[in-house]
């Protein structure tokens, strides 16, 4: 009996009136876990019952503890008829199963009913006593930590990053069981909610087992999704990255742990030797039989960056031989894995060496042909195929690993499109070997790898390029080749140097298709897909050029299938990477050059495009330095450094004009206008309106070029469903409609959040679905963060501050610290050189120099293993002082309900996460048969989403947390039937519950007493004592 679950029902409040006669309720509670049920006494005639029950104790296997949710049902006692259910609370007790997370779940939970929504609240206390069980063959995986965050969580250190884990479970969908015809909608919804909860638990347990098998202790970047396949079943699948994480404790921070270089090496994340690689349990042979005969597979890789690789042009350079060695090592380590995939999008410094480009694969399947729908084999095989394809694409790009990896599906009736995408990459070999031997090699490599441009260098062979591309010498280091454009699915690496700010770039596309059945339908879709991929890609490229930028991060292409159309929506964040060449302009060429008026029209368009590019450059502050052609190719470190200083200070319009001229000289991107379609495309290019002034948007974690965030954040979800007018649907009108829908949605967001200006919408996540023939549903979740405008002007200064601040924030994170300092000191060199070259900034540089001294000092002290100097540095920072001032104003202490922040980002600006309490993964169904009375579809969904937020917050608060990070709404399936006055919606959300402490409070706490408000285990308080 490896575990004892203890539950206490304390009280209820705001219960609904269940007895019309007395206007009161006789409530009691059923507590169910597995097959055991306890009941409280009936608390008569009250809407605020005080049960104060005894401790209900469940003695259970830890396998059940992981799979089963705790189910609490509140009922109204009725002497003469059946007891009426008021509502339910499902509590996932997983966070209680590992020692570093929550120790108790205690708080007010909304009582939820799938028909009526939230009906009052119930106060519950839950505890778990775990007995150690060392059974080798156990089925449970208690103790494995799960994180949605797609980077190494703050306050942890990656010892080893093992690699990809995946799992998939299938069950019959209760909605499609025969019994559904005779049971109530409520019973059916609850069966579904419970089933998905159970399946999620099982999935998590199985993934945990795989992690244990790999000797890991955590899953990072855990992404769980469910596919409603209809008749053929309900699939819950998950992917993640197995890691061995170490909690950064304050004691460790004080130990002179990183004294010796070899020790330091050990602190770095290692890609673990592949002795226990990840193996899928359902590694069955691919079913070629009956059902999945029609596998219209194809895939399109979108490699946008070409690589010199070793031995070619760069062979003579110092890095060459080491690189070759590096490659061999990486190769051998990674190739033995089935899938060298990583769901992470941000990495420990030094982990990512080169980025090859985006790789993606799609495949169309027919669900009604699954041979044995209740078993996961077929789906496992499908995904294995796709992953294999991704792997080979990555190989074609000279890469051995795929980072920023994700998988998705789109289902319409019996057709299902499976998609996977990621970024082909080369990982650092020193993470593959044990440190000591490699010491000197590592050192030299470190010197050779220039900070902030290495990842741009091509990983493939220049002479053997997988596709045609323009290569130039890196604009930063001048030693290696870089492509002209770079597309990736990851976040912008922390050490990457960019010019100006980034922006959200979207490609939107619709294609009509004929309604068809089965094979014919699947074939039609398969035939359309490559064209869509191509067009999405072209659109992205055009828009990127139009913005005057040269790289895309966080690229996510979603293809959605409907009855009579396909939709493609790609979102990414465009930036200007200093390492890549200045993008050429867009040149329009007509096919019929004879016509004079046509020529005129073309030139008019050309002018408009050029104007737009110039305007965008100004808007996003993209003013890279002019580099004389002849210098290109020869290694000159100086210009880059000067440029980094210049860019923030000099924004004269002259320079912008000069840059414009440079477009002409470069190879321009030629757009041929040969028919009206192409004309439309050019028009649509120009219709994208930039956000109003004071607004920026991106779909990555943070906006490149902005780093002075204030603590004001607002997470939101916005949903729009549009009905297409039935008449004369053409691809063009469809495209225009879809484009307008997205643009208007963005405009609405900007308007709604105007009080937060200057502000940036971060992690903007669009999802498109086609719930019915003429309906398009677009769901957006993002977070708006206000930033400090005044500090934004002095970009360079803030950068130094940021680095110093970051250094102090992360001061216990031994792993990242030394490495980060290296880059920081490197980055700050420009100031010292600036002092010599430009007198204008001397006073400024002086100030910076003192900063640099501090940083250097700190770097040295850190290397010696002491961190004492950090706090004074932070205190001296004007930025922190600013924060301090602002924060004193909104004192929310008198609120009865604790504020819980929610954000799709992995961090909270101006705050430090001191503890991860566990994963939040919740699934809700809401249904109504009185749609009009609830305010129509908008009223219904608005209320439901607000309720979902409330339930997430309540669970986090009960775990003792005050925020959810890496929050994501994975699914929002909405169905309506206005004629019947009915609607139904399914929502699946997840995130990491955390405790955060404001940086200012952290200081106060630390100066007063070690640990005040934060949990005993948190390290935050002890730093400065």
């Amino acid at each position, binding site marked *: 009996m490896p575990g004892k679950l203890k539950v206490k029902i304390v009280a209820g*409040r*705001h219960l609904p009136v269940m007895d019309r006669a007395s206007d009161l309720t006789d409530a009691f509670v059923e507590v169910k876990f597995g097959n055991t049920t306890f009941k409280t006494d009936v608390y008569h005639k009250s809407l605020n019952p005080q049960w104060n029950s005894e401790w209900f104790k469940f003695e259970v296997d830890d396998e059940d503890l992981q799979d089963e949710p705790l189910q609490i049902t509140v009922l109204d006692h009725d002497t003469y008829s059946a007891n009426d259910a008021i509502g339910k609370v499902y509590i996932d007790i997983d966070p209680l199963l590992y020692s570093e997370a929550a120790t108790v779940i205690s708080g*007010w939970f*909304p009582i939820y009913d799938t028909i009526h929504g*939230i009906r009052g*609240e119930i106060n519950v206390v839950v505890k778990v006593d775990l007995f150690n069980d060392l059974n080798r063959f156990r089925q449970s995986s208690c103790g494995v930590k799960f994180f949605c965050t797609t980077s190494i969580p703050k306050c942890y250190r990656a010892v080893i990053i093992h690699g990809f884990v995946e799992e998939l479970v299938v069950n019959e969908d209760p909605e499609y069981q025969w019994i559904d015809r005779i049971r109530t909608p409520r019973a059916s919804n609850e069966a579904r909610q419970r089933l998905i909860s159970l399946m999620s638990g099982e999935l998590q347990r199985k993934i945990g087992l795989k992690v244990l098998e790999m000797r890991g202790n955590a899953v990072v970047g855990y992404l769980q999704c469910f596919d409603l396949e209809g008749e053929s079943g309900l699939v819950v699948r998950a992917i993640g990255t197995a890691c061995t994480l170490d909690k950064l404790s304050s004691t460790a921070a004080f130990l002179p742990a990183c004294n010796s270089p070899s020790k330091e090496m050990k602190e770095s994340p290692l890609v673990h030797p592949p002795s226990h690689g990840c193996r899928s349990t359902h590694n069955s042979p691919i079913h070629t039989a009956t059902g999945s005969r029609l596998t219209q597979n194809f895939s399109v890789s979108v490699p946008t960056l070409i690589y010199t690789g070793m031995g070619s042009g760069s062979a003579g350079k110092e890095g060459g031989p080491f690189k070759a060695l590096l490659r061999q090592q990486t190769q051998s380590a990674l190739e033995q894995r089935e899938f060298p995939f990583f769901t992470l999008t941000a990495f420990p410094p030094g982990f990512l060496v080169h980025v090859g480009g985006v790789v993606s694969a799609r495949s169309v399947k027919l669900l009604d042909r699954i041979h044995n729908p209740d078993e996961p084999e077929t789906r496992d095989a499908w995904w294995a195929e796709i992953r294999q394809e991704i792997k080979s694409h990555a190989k074609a790009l000279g890469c051995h690993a795929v980072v920023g990896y994700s998988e998705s599906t789109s289902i319409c009736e019996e057709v299902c499109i499976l998609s996977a995408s990621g970024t082909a990459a080369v990982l650092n070999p020193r993470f593959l070997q044990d440190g000591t031997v490699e010491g000197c090699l590592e050192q030299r490599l470190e010197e050779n790898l220039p900070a902030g441009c290495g990842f741009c260098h091509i990983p493939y062979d220049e002479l053997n390029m997988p596709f045609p591309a323009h290569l130039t010498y890196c604009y930063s280091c001048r030693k290696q080749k870089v492509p002209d454009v770079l597309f990736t699915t990851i976040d912008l690496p922390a050490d990457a140097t960019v010019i100006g700010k980034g922006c959200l770039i979207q490609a939107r596309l619709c294609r009509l298709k004929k309604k068809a059945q089965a094979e014919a339908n699947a074939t039609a879709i398969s035939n359309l897909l490559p064209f869509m991929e191509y067009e999405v890609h072209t659109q992205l490229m055009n828009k990127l050029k139009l913005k005057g930028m040269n790289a895309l991060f966080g690229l996510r292409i979603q293809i959605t299938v409907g009855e009579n159309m396909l939709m493609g929506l790609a979102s990414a964040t465009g930036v200007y990477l200093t390492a890549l060449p200045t993008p050429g302009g867009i040149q329009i060429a007509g096919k019929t050059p004879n016509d004079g008026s046509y020529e005129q029209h073309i030139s008019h368009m050309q002018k408009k495009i050029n104007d737009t590019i110039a305007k965008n450059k100004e808007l996003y502050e993209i003013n890279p330095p002019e580099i004389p052609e002849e210098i290109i190719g020869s290694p000159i470190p100086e210009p880059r450094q000067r440029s980094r200083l210049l860019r923030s200070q000099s924004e004269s319009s002259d320079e912008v004009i000069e840059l414009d001229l440079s477009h002409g000289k470069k190879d321009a991107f030629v757009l041929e206008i040969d028919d009206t379609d192409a004309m439309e495309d050019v028009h649509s290019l120009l219709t994208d309106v930039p956000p*109003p002034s004071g607004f920026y948007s991106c779909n990555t974690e943070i906006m490149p070029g902005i780093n002075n965030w204030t603590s004001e954040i*607002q*997470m*939101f*979800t*916005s*949903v*729009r*469903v*549009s*009905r*297409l*007018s039935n008449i004369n649907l053409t691809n063009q009108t469809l495209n225009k*409609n879809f484009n*307008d*829908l997205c643009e*208007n949605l963005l*405009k*609405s*967001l*900007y*308007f*709604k959040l*105007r009080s937060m200006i200057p502000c940036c919408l971060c992690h903007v996540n669009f999802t498109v679905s086609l719930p019915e023939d003429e*309906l398009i*549903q677009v769901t957006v979740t993002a977070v708006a963060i206000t930033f400090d405008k005044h500090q934004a002007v002095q970009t360079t200064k803030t950068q130094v501050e940021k680095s110093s601040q970051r250094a102090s924030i992360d001061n216990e994170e031994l792993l990242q610290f030394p490495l980060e300092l290296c880059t920081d000191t490197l980055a700050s060199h420009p100031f010292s050189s600036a002092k010599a070259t430009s007198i204008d900034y001397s006073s400024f540089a002086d100030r910076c120099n003192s900063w640099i001294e501090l940083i250097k000092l700190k770097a040295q002290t850190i290397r010696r293993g002491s961190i004492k100097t950090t706090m004074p540095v932070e205190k001296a920072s004007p930025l922190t002082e600013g924060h301090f001032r602002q924060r004193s104003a*909104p004192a*929310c202490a*008198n*609120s*009865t*309900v604790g*504020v*819980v*922040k*929610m954000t799709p980002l992995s961090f909270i600006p101006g705050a430090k996460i001191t503890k991860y309490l566990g994963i939040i993964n919740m699934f809700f169904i809401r249904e109504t048969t009185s749609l009009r009375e609830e*305010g129509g*579809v*908008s*009223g219904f*969904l*608005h*209320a439901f*989403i*607000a*309720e979902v*937020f*409330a339930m997430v*917050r*309540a669970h986090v608060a009960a775990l003792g947390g005050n925020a959810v990070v890496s929050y994501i709404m994975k699914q929002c399936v*909405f169905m309506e039937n206005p004629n019947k006055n009915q609607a139904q919606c399914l929502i699946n959300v997840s995130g990491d519950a955390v405790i955060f402490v404001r940086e200012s409070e952290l200081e106060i706490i630390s100066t007063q007493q070690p640990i005040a408000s934060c949990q005993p285990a948190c390290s935050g308080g002890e730093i400065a004592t």
Partner: protein
Amino acid sequence: MTNELDIFVGNTTLIDEDVYRLWLDGYSVSDAVGLRVRSGILEQTGATAGVLQSDTMDHYRTFHMLERLLHTPPKLLHQLVFQIPPSRQALLIERYYAFDEAFVREVLGKKLSKGTKKDLDNISAKTGVTLKSCRRQFDNFKRVFKVVEEMRGSLAGNIQQHFLLSDRLARDYAAVVFFANNRFETGKKKLQYLTFGDLAFCAELMIQNWTPGAVADSQLDDMDVDLDKEFLQDLKELKVLVADKDLLDLHKSLVCTALRGKLSVFAEMEANFKNLSRGLVNIASKLTHTKDVRDLFVDLVEKFIEPCRSDRWPLNDVRLFLNQYSASVHSLDGFRHQTLWDRYMVTLRSCLLRMYHD
């Protein structure tokens, strides 16, 4: 292409103060959009009418959902569905319970019943306040009334505790409740010149001095809503001041002696003294009848304010007179109800002075 569904949900509930005001004022979504367009918001933000429409709809929906909670403000504080900062919660409540001067003057002293509710469209037409807004204000009055009607303790305190209103607004509501409970007539034409402020001032004084709660030792019946029955009964004793001719003459001579040369309207005062005194004392002695309680303000205006006003008494003279008039009673040897007189006159004097304007 039309948007069938269009929503925005923030983790922190977005509240737009301007839209909230429009909603409270009872404008329909399209009217509100029109008003917002006219405010020049489109030019300021570069938004389109469609965006404004969607934004307004969204806010209206939010307010509609919040309205249920606003009916019992403590629930707004404890609910979990809408995460709203405390300062915003306070603003929502305060604005929701705020009322229009024009509206309250129409309803003040009326029974808060279905009958009155049916009259709301007339009131709306008369005051220019939208019917929706009238309903909200009326329902607020009624809701507050129902909750505190039977409660012990300070009326304003109870209101503040149960509706989380500001001190000022809670006291205004106390006046509304007090008027509604005692059904004081305030609608007569000759009372139209009185503002809600005047009447609320009087109500507050009456609550302080004339209710059972005003007397320290009457713990048993600490009610602020009703007038103190015993006190009203006792007021009959004051009648002797005008019924006893000697006493009346003596009172008059005391007042006249003290005020000679100090009043610009001395002659008029001297001539009118007995009428005025009779008026004030008779009002007191009749307060046992509910009908006369209701007419209290009418009587005060008719019996005292109008005569003075027609003789063009300056406010200062009225003050001097009332002070002397109340004080002189203490020198009347034969009169034994000094405390009673003071309890009556202190309040009445302040009320009359407040009500004495054009």
